[in-house]
C-alpha cells in the first residue's frame, strides 16, 4: 500500500482489493470502488489538468458530476480513447490508463500557460474584439488557429468498437436521484405496488449520505440505511433500480432521457454488454430528488490544486478513506464546512484554521469544532491562496480590511453554500422562484406532473427531507392508482443542517480588485470578467453568459451560475431575481453520440430492403444500386466486362431475344370495392370507368397543383378490383396520398386500399422471345395476341403457383410482367431463367431498364419530372381525361402559369457528335457566345449511350421545346460547348410495331 493519503480506518472500501492504474504514464495503486479522482488523491496527486483558456494548473474540485477541472482522457485501446471524462465520476478498474489534457509538453510544465501571463489580452469577449481585423485574416489565420486551440482532449480517430443499446420504459413513478429523498420517495411509491424506476448517477446510492457522518435513519448510519433500502427496492418486482444512470433530459409529457453507463467501470467488459444504455422513460409522475451542489468561495487564486469543495473533501474521507491533505485550511460562509473540518480532524488530519466570513455564528458544529481544538476565525476572509501547482498557503484578512496573516496549508476546503439542483425541473419548463431569505432559486411553478423533494426543493435537514419525499412518493403513487401503502416512513434519528451561505465574490475579490478569483473554472471566467461584461453594456444575464462564456463549458455552470448571477446583479445594482437565471437545457451532463444513436448503426442504421429474387442476382455477381431503402440489381457483369459493356450487352439482348428483370420493388396497391373505379377517376387523370376487366392502362397521378406526382400501369382485375402499380420510390407516399383523399375528401366512396407491394414478386420478361419463354410454364391463360393483347392482365398459374400475368412493356418490346407470391419469386425466376436459356435470354438490371425505356421516350417520374412538370409538359396530355368533371389536379392544370406559352417541355436531344454522351443535369442555352451568366432555357434529364441506336440519346426539359424540333441548341461544359439537335422523344421503333413483334 503506497497510497500515502489513504486512511485505513476511514471510508467504506475494502482495502484488500487493489487496482493498478496509470496517470500520464506514471503507475499508481488504488482500491476497487475508488473513482479515478479519489485514487489520485490517495496518492497525493492533486494536479490533474490545465484550464481551457489560461492553461492554469488545476486540481480536483468536487467529488461528482459537477466537476469542472479534473477532466482526463481515458485510453482503453487504440480505438477507445474517451476525452473529457470527469475523474470524479470515472470508476477505477485494474489497468485503467488516464492522461491529462490541454497541456504540452507536460502537465507540470505547460507552454500554453503563457496565456495566463498574457491574460489581459484574453479578457471577457476577447474573441469578439480581437479577431475582427484584418477581415481577410479570419479564414486564413484566426479561424484555423482558434480551431486548433479549441476543445479539450483528443477525439478518437477510429470507429467506435463498442455497442450501445436503448430501451423504452414506462412507469408510474420515476424517481430521479438516489439520496435520502429519492430513496424515501421510491420506498413510499413502491410499497403501493405501482411501477417505480429509481435512478442515480453514482455507482452507489446514498447521495449526500455518502459523506454525512451525522445522519442516522431507522437506527443505522445513513449510508447503511440507504444500501438496505436499495436492496429491498431491488428485490421488488414493480421496481427498477438503475445506478450509474444520469437523467440528462426532461422532455414534454414526462418523457425523460437517461443514460446508464453499463461497462465503463469494468476492467474487461463482456462482449454482450453495451457500453451504455439509453433509457427513454415515460412516467405518470416524476419525483425530482436531485439534491444540491456546493458552491466554492470566489477569492484570488481559488483554483489552485488542493483547493476543493468541503463536501467533496468529506466524501473523499468518509466514503473513499482518503485525506485530501495533511494540513488543511477551511474557508466558509456556512456551517457545512465545519462538519468536514471535524471529520478530518477526527481522522487525524491537522486543520490549520477555519476562516468564516460570518461575524458571530453559533451552533453545535461550531461548538464541536472548537471543542476539538480547531482554530476558528469569524468575520475574516481568505484573500488569496499561495502556491502554483499545489496550494501552499492561505492569506487571511478581516473582511473589512486590516492586517494580513498567511497560514501554511496543503489544502483548502471551501463552502459558500449549496445550490439546489433545479436543472431537470427547469428543463421540464417549470419556472423557478427566488427565495430572498435563503438566497436561492427553488422550484416555483410546475409545468408537468412532477414534484421536487429534498435539497433540490430547498428543503433543509434530513428529517424534513425524508418527510417531504415520503409523502410525495406516496401521493404520486396514489395518483397513479396505487393501493394504500402499508409501509412505514423511515425514521430520522440524526441529522445535519447546512443551509444558507453567500453568493458572489468574497471580500478581497471585490469590484476594486483585479485578482483572478474564478467563478467558472472550466471556462476560466473570473469575477472581474463578469463585471467587465456589465461595464461593456451587457444587461441581460443571457448576454453576460455569452460574452464571458460563464456556464457554457461542458459542466454547464453547475458550480458557477449563481456566483456569476450575483456578481452581475451587484454590478448592475439590481436584485438577483430581476436579473434572472439563464435557462437550463438538456443534457444535464454530456451524452455520448453512441448512446443517442444506440442500435441505429451498421445494419440497423436504416432498413435495407431486398427482393425475393435478390439472392439469385447476388449469386450471379450482380452489382446493386440503392433505390430508396431497396437494393436493386444495377447490372450483371460477365467476366471482364465493365458497366458500360454489361449494359450494352443487356440492352441488345433484350431487343434481340429477351431479358429477365426483377421489378418486384415497384409499388403495388390493390384498390377494392364497388366504388373502385370512381375512386380511380378522382385520383388519376385518366378515365377508368370504361376500362374493361382484364385490361390495363398507364395512369398519371397529379397533386392538386397540377404537377405530376406519380405514374404507373393499372390493371383492372374485376369491376370492383384494380391492381395499381407505382414507382419504386413513390410507393409509400402514393399510398399515403390515396388514403388521405379516401379518408378525408371522398369518405363516401365504398373502396379500400391495401399495399401489396411485398405480396408479389414481379419478374419482367421482355423481348421478342418473351412469350416463348413464359408460355410453357403457364396454366389457364391463353397467351395468344388475340386473347392477351398488349396492356392486358390475367390471373392463372405459373409453375403451379398463382400469378397475375400482365402483358405490358417498359422497353417497347413484346413484354410481360409475371407477378407471383413473393416466397415463390426466386423459384419462378429460376424456372423462367431456365426456359430463357433456350432462347438466348439475359438478366438485365436497372441501368439497362433505364436505357431501354429512354430509347422509347418513356419517362421516369422523379428523373424526367421534378415536381414542376405537368402532363402536357411531359407530352402526356393524351392521358388526361378531357371529359372528366373532377380529379385531383384538375383545377391546378388551368392555373395561368400552367397554361402559359413557353413552358419547359420534355423533348429528345441528339448530340451532333453521336459519340458524345451528355451529362444529366447539364444546362442548355440558345447562344453559347452570350455573356455569362448565360440564359439557361432547360436542362438534360436523362442521357445514355444507346447501343441499340448506335449513338447517344437524351431527354431534356426545354422552354418551348416542342416548337423547337430540329433546332440546334448548346450545352456549355467545362471542356467546351456541345451542340445538340432537338428531336422527338422516341429514338427506337417509332411506330411501336415491336410491342407485338
Amino acid at each position, binding site marked *: 500500500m503506497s497510497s500515502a493519503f489513504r486512511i485505513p480506518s476511514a471510508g467504506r472500501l475494502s482495502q484488500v482489493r487493489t487496482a493498478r492504474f496509470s496517470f500520464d504514464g506514471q503507475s499508481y495503486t488504488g482500491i476497487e470502488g475508488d473513482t479515478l479522482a479519489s485514487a489520485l488523491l490517495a496518492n497525493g496527486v492533486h494536479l490533474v489538468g490545465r484550464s481551457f483558456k489560461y492553461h492554469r494548473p488545476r486540481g480536483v474540485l468536487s467529488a461528482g458530476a459537477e466537476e469542472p477541472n479534473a477532466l482526463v482522457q481515458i485510453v482503453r485501446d487504440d480505438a477507445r480513447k474517451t476525452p473529457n471524462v470527469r475523474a470524479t465520476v470515472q470508476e477505477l478498474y485494474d489497468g485503467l490508463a488516464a492522461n491529462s489534457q490541454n497541456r504540452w509538453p507536460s502537465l507540470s510544465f505547460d507552454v500554453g500557460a503563457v496565456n495566463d501571463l498574457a491574460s489581459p489580452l484574453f479578457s471577457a469577449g476577447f474573441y469578439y474584439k480581437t479577431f475582427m481585423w484584418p477581415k481577410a485574416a479570419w479564414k486564413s489565420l484566426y479561424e484555423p488557429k482558434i480551431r486548433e486551440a479549441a476543445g479539450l482532449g483528443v477525439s478518437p480517430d477510429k470507429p467506435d468498437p463498442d*455497442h450501445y*443499446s*436503448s*430501451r*423504452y*420504459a*414506462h412507469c408510474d413513478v420515476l424517481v430521479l436521484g438516489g439520496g435520502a429523498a429519492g430513496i424515501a420517495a421510491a420506498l413510499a411509491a413502491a410499497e403501493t405496488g405501482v*411501477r417505480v424506476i429509481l435512478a442515480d448517477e453514482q455507482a452507489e446510492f446514498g447521495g449526500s449520505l455518502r459523506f454525512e457522518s451525522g445522519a442516522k435513519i431507522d437506527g443505522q448510519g445513513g449510508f447503511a440505511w440507504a444500501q438496505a433500502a436499495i436492496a429491498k427496492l431491488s428485490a421488488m418486482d414493480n421496481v427498477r433500480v438503475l445506478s450509474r444512470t444520469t437523467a440528462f433530459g426532461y422532455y414534454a409529457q414526462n418523457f425523460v432521457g437517461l443514460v446508464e453507463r*453499463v461497462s465503463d467501470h469494468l476492467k474487461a467488459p*463482456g462482449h*454482450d*454488454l*453495451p457500453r451504455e*444504455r439509453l433509457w*427513454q422513460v*415515460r412516467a405518470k409522475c416524476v419525483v425530482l430528488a436531485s439534491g444540491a451542489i456546493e458552491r466554492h468561495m470566489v477569492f484570488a487564486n481559488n483554483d489552485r490544486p488542493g483547493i476543493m469543495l468541503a463536501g467533496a473533501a468529506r466524501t473523499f474521507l468518509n466514503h473513499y478513506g482518503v485525506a485530501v491533505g495533511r494540513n488543511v485550511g477551511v474557508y466558509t460562509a456556512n456551517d457545512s464546512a465545519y462538519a468536514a473540518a471535524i471529520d478530518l480532524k477526527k481522522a487525524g488530519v491537522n486543520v490549520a484554521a477555519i476562516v468564516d466570513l460570518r461575524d458571530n455564528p453559533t451552533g453545535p458544529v461550531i461548538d464541536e469544532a472548537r471543542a476539538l481544538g480547531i482554530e476558528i476565525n469569524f468575520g475574516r476572509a481568505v484573500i488569496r491562496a499561495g502556491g502554483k501547482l499545489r496550494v501552499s498557503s492561505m492569506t487571511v484578512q478581516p473582511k473589512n480590511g486590516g492586517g494580513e496573516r498567511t497560514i501554511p496549508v496543503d489544502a483548502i476546503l471551501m463552502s459558500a453554500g449549496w445550490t439546489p439542483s433545479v436543472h431537470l425541473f427547469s428543463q421540464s419548463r417549470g419556472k423557478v422562484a427566488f427565495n430572498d431569505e435563503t438566497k436561492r432559486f427553488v422550484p416555483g411553478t410546475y409545468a408537468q406532473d412532477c414534484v421536487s423533494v429534498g435539497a433540490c426543493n430547498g428543503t433543509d435537514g434530513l428529517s424534513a427531507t425524508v418527510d417531504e419525499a415520503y409523502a410525495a412518493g406516496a401521493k404520486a403513487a396514489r395518483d397513479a392508482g396505487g393501493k394504500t401503502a402499508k409501509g412505514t416512513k423511515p425514521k430520522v434519528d440524526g441529522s445535519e443542517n447546512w443551509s444558507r451561505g453567500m453568493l458572489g465574490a468574497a471580500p478581497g475579490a471585490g469590484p476594486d480588485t483585479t485578482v483572478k478569483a474564478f467563478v467558472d473554472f472550466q471556462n476560466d471566467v473570473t469575477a472581474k470578467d463578469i463585471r467587465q461584461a456589465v461595464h461593456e453594456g451587457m444587461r441581460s444575464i443571457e448576454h453576460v453568459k455569452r460574452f464571458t462564456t460563464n456556464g457554457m463549458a461542458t459542466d454547464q455552470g453547475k458550480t458557477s451560475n449563481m456566483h456569476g448571477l450575483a456578481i452581475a446583479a451587484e454590478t448592475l445594482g439590481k436584485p438577483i431575481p430581476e436579473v434572472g437565471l439563464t435557462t437550463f437545457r438538456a443534457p444535464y451532463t454530456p451524452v455520448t453520440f453512441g448512446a443517442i444513436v444506440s*442500435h*441505429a448503426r451498421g*445494419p*440497423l442504421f*436504416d*432498413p*435495407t*430492403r*431486398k*427482393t*425475393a429474387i435478390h439472392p439469385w442476382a447476388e449469386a450471379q455477381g450482380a452489382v446493386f444500386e440503392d433505390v430508396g431503402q*431497396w437494393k436493386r440489381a444495377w447490372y450483371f457483369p460477365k467476366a471482364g466486362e465493365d458497366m458500360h459493356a454489361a449494359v450494352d450487352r443487356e440492352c441488345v439482348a433484350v431487343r434481340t431475344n429477351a431479358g429477365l428483370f426483377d421489378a418486384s420493388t415497384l409499388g403495388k396497391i*390493390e384498390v*377494392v*370495392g*364497388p366504388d373502385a373505379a370512381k375512386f380511380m377517376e378522382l385520383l388519376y387523370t385518366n378515365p377508368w370507368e370504361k376500362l374493361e376487366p382484364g385490361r390495363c392502362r398507364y395512369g398519371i397521378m397529379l397533386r392538386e397543383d397540377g404537377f405530376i406526382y406519380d405514374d404507373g400501369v393499372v390493371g383492372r*382485375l*374485376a369491376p*370492383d*378490383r384494380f391492381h395499381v402499380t407505382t414507382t419504386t420510390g413513390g410507393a409509400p407516399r402514393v399510398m399515403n396520398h390515396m388514403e388521405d383523399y379516401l379518408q378525408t375528401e371522398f369518405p363516401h366512396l*365504398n*373502396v*379500400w386500399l*391495401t*399495399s*401489396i*407491394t*411485398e*405480396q*408479389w414478386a414481379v419478374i419482367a420478361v421482355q423481348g421478342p422471345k418473351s412469350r416463348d419463354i413464359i408460355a410453357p410454364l403457364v396454366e389457364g391463360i391463353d397467351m395468344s395476341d388475340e386473347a392477351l393483347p398488349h396492356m392486358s392482365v390475367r*390471373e392463372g*398459374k405459373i*409453375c*403451379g*403457383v*398463382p400469378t*397475375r400475368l400482365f402483358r405490358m412493356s417498359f422497353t417497347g418490346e413484346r413484354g410481360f410482367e409475371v407477378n407471383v*407470391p*413473393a*416466397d*415463390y419469386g426466386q*423459384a*419462378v425466376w429460376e*424456372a423462367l431463367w431456365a426456359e430463357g436459356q433456350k432462347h438466348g435470354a439475359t438478366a438485365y438490371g436497372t441501368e439497362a431498364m433505364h436505357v431501354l425505356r429512354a430509347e422509347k421516350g418513356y419517362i421516369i417520374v422523379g428523373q424526367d419530372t421534378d415536381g414542376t412538370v405537368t402532363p402536357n409538359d411531359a407530352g402526356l396530355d393524351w392521358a388526361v381525361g378531357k371529359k372528366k368533371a373532377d380529379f385531383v389536379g384538375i383545377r391546378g392544370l388551368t392555373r395561368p402559369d400552367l397554361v402559359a406559352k413557353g413552358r419547359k417541355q420534355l423533348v429528345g436531344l441528339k448530340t451532333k457528335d453521336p459519340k458524345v454522351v451528355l451529362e444529366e443535369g447539364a444546362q442548355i442555352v440558345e447562344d453559347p457566345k452570350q455573356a455569362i451568366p448565360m440564359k439557361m432555357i432547360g436542362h438534360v434529364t436523362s442521357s445514355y449511350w444507346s447501343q441499340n441506336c448506335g449513338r447517344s440519346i437524351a431527354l431534356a426539359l426545354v422552354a418551348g421545346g416542342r416548337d423547337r424540333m430540329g433546332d440546334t441548341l448548346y450545352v456549355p461544359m467545362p471542356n467546351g460547348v456541345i451542340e445538340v439537335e432537338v428531336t422527338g422523344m422516341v429514338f427506337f421503333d417509332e411506330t411501336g410495331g415491336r410491342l407485338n413483334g
Partner: protein
Amino acid sequence: MAKAAVKKAAPAASPSVERRPALAGRNVSATGVKVEELPPAERMSLRAPEPSVAALSKALGLTLPKKPKTSVSKAGRTALWLGPDEWLVIDEAGNDPLADCAKVAALHSAVCISHRNIAISVMGPAAEAAINSGCPQDLSLDAFPVGAASRTILGKAEIVLLRTAADAFRVECWRSFSDYVFTFLSEGARDAAG
C-alpha cells in the same frame, strides 16, 4: 364481390417450384428470450364497414374484434384489430380465410397478404424488454395484455405486434423489412438478457 380474390388466393394445388420464405429457419437465443422465424401462414387484410362485420365474423368462424388494440383467436385463426375498419386475419391451421370471405355478399375488401408479411416469435421472460429496445409502446401486461394487438414501430420499421402469452409475442412485418426487424430484435434480446 370477391371473386378475383378467391382465384388468386386459392392455395396452389401442386406448385412445381419451391417456396422460399425470407428468414427461413433463423433464430437467436439469449438468456431469457428466444427470437425465431415462424412458419408461413395464410394472411388476409380485411376491410369492412360496421354493418358487414357480423356476416364476415360468421363466415370466418370468429367474432371480429371491434375494440382497439385487441384480437380474437379461434381454432388456429386470429383476427387482429388494426383500425376501425381494418383487420389482419392470420390462419395458422392451413385454412384460407379469403375463401371464407368470398361467400359474403356484404360490403368488404379481402386481399391476400400471406407472402407480404413475415412472422417472428419473441418468447421468454425478457421478450417484453427485447421488443422495447425499439418499440415505444408500453408493453406491460396492464397496458398490453395477452391478446393485445397493434400496428406500431420497431426502430425504423413498421410492425404489427400481437401478445400471444404473458411472455410471448408475435411480430409481423413486411417481407423486405424482416432482416432488419429480426436483427433489431436479436440485438434487443442480447441486451435484454444482460
